[in-house]
């Protein structure tokens, strides 16, 4: 089959590799009908996530058709159309039982590696470095899906892939970020740093949850325009963001701040240098701003991915303002059904975010287009069959 392989920093290649096979009794094999490049894939592309190996198959946003099931699979059958969460979860541990799917105890075969860094290991993830399992990802024509009874959502409607694909990650991720803001309808003001795909879904989710006002911060005009189209007030990040936010909130500051940027924020030369020199693993520019901007007693919600160590984080600001911080990889399985309902009810059409549709074979060049935000690129969907 064809698969997008990480071959080094800023080096992606579409290669011919072996088709996946069932390796464990709970596995299924999915023939992929649609797959996407996620903003978080860019952290791997840019070489900021450790433990990538040459030849690793990328991708964690994919859906398709079940073509084979292992002997222990009960709920899925060949021919089922499925949306596959990016979090790999066993379904049997205490965290899965609590719906904390991204904290699964058992799905990371390299748990020892993650334990060395973090104390305890989070769940395995598709195509997201060996630290989180080294699982082959879904930017390919087929994928092996472990614990097939505890992840994939079977879709029985006839909605297009474009409307369903983002249930795999960015829609639940944006939604969980908004849910974490403890939004009181008609009262809560939410500010969102980063209008990439996750930011876009966070903005729309906050509005769906009844936020009084959503303020979006970014530097890319087409991303701000997309946020505005959803009903957000926008701030360009070359403006005095804190001052603007104060002004838009009657001097109180936003009740909730969402950092949908993560470890590779632009805007700070200091962080660029330190990250390049490996003195700092992440560039937390948006996070620092959000920490200062958020209202006293407010919530800071972080869907943006952080990998390691942060420098000059104004911890005193969030401590002294009594801010609640909520974060983590998304518990995707928790959101699949409720968000599918929202799509089916027509409350949201996730395909709004797609700017590029190309054959899988053109993935390498699309990584470059996406990372450079060229050609108005916000979200790339790859067609494995084309």
């Amino acid at each position, binding site marked *: 089959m064809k698969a997008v392989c990480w071959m080094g920093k800023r080096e992606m*290649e579409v290669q011919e590799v*072996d*088709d996946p096979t069932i390796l464990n009794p709970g596995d299924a094999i999915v023939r992929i009908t649609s797959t996407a490049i996620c903003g978080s894939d860019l952290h791997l592309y840019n070489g900021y996530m450790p433990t990538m190996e040459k030849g690793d198959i990328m991708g964690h946003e994919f859906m398709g058709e079940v073509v084979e099931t292992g002997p222990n699979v009960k709920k899925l059958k060949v021919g089922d159309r499925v949306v596959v969460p990016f979090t790999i979860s066993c379904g049997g541990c205490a965290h899965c039982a609590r719906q904390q799917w991204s904290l699964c105890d058992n799905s990371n075969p390299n748990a020892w590696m993650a334990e060395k860094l973090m104390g305890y290991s989070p769940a395995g993830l598709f195509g997201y470095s060996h630290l989180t399992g080294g699982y082959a990802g879904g930017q390919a024509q087929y994928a092996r899906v472990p614990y097939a009874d505890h992840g994939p959502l079977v879709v029985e409607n006839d909605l297009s892939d474009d409307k369903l694909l983002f249930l795999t990650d960015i829609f639940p991720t944006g939604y969980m970020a908004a849910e974490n803001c403890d939004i009181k309808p008609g009262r809560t003001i939410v500010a969102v740093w980063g209008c990439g795909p996750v930011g876009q879904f966070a903005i729309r989710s906050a509005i769906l949850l009844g936020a009084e006002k959503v303020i979006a911060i970014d530097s890319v005009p087409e991303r701000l325009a997309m946020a505005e189209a959803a009903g957000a007030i926008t701030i360009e990040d070359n403006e005095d963001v804190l001052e603007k936010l104060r002004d838009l909130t009657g001097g109180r500051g936003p009740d909730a701040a969402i950092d949908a940027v993560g470890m590779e924020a632009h805007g700070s030369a200091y962080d660029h240098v330190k990250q390049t020199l490996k003195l700092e693993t992440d560039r937390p520019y948006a996070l620092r701003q959000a920490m200062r901007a958020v209202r006293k007693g407010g919530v800071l919600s972080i869907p943006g991915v952080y990998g390691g160590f942060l420098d000059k984080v104004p911890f005193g600001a969030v401590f002294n303002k009594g801010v609640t911080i909520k974060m983590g990889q998304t518990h995707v399985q928790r959101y699949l059904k409720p968000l599918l309902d929202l799509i089916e009810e027509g409350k949201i059409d996730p395909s709004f975010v797609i700017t590029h549709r190309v054959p899988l074979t053109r993935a390498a060049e699309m990584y470059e287009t996406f990372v450079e935000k060229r050609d108005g690129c916000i979200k790339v969907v790859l067609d494995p069959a084309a």
Partner: protein
Amino acid sequence: METTPGTSGQTIAQPAREPSRITVPGNRGVKVVRSCTIRRPAADLYQFWRSLENLVQVIKHPVTITRISDTESHWVVSAPGDKSVEWDAAIINDEPNELIAWRSKEGADIANAGTVRFEPAPGDEGTEVRVQLEYDAPGGKFAALLAKLTGEEPEQQVAETLRRFKALMESGEIPTTEGQSAGGAQAKKRREERLQRQRRIAS
């Protein structure tokens, strides 16, 4: 001290809550202690562990365990260069659903002793499983030798064994990517892994 193998439900030689007595002679061993919590009743976990042959499923390093009697077993751990390390082990304390203790018998290549305890965890967490293992360490060099033989530190081996035990008991399988598809430099290695795995399943 001579110990007679105990049978199920029959406690002999030592009181159950005194792990210091279950030890290698002279107490000069390397000691490893590791705990984990498994979301299953103690009885299920105890039963799995009590059939010692089951342990080959959760010990990552290649090992064969042959049952000699209800309480005795023969262990062969492979080492690089077609070498192996062998010993006979006897269960010396057995408290159903609570504790199993074992010790290698005279003539072992590696004198070793250990216990596994199963205790209810708070709330609905399941069962706390605590493994304590001691290896003989003549001249204090034994741990290093064993690590060299098997390529892994004893602490890591115990941690990995417990992790795999937990995964198998909670989800019915042990997570793996061995033999999965990959491109570039890994493609050949992965293909070999896959062939090995298929051979293992076939045999």
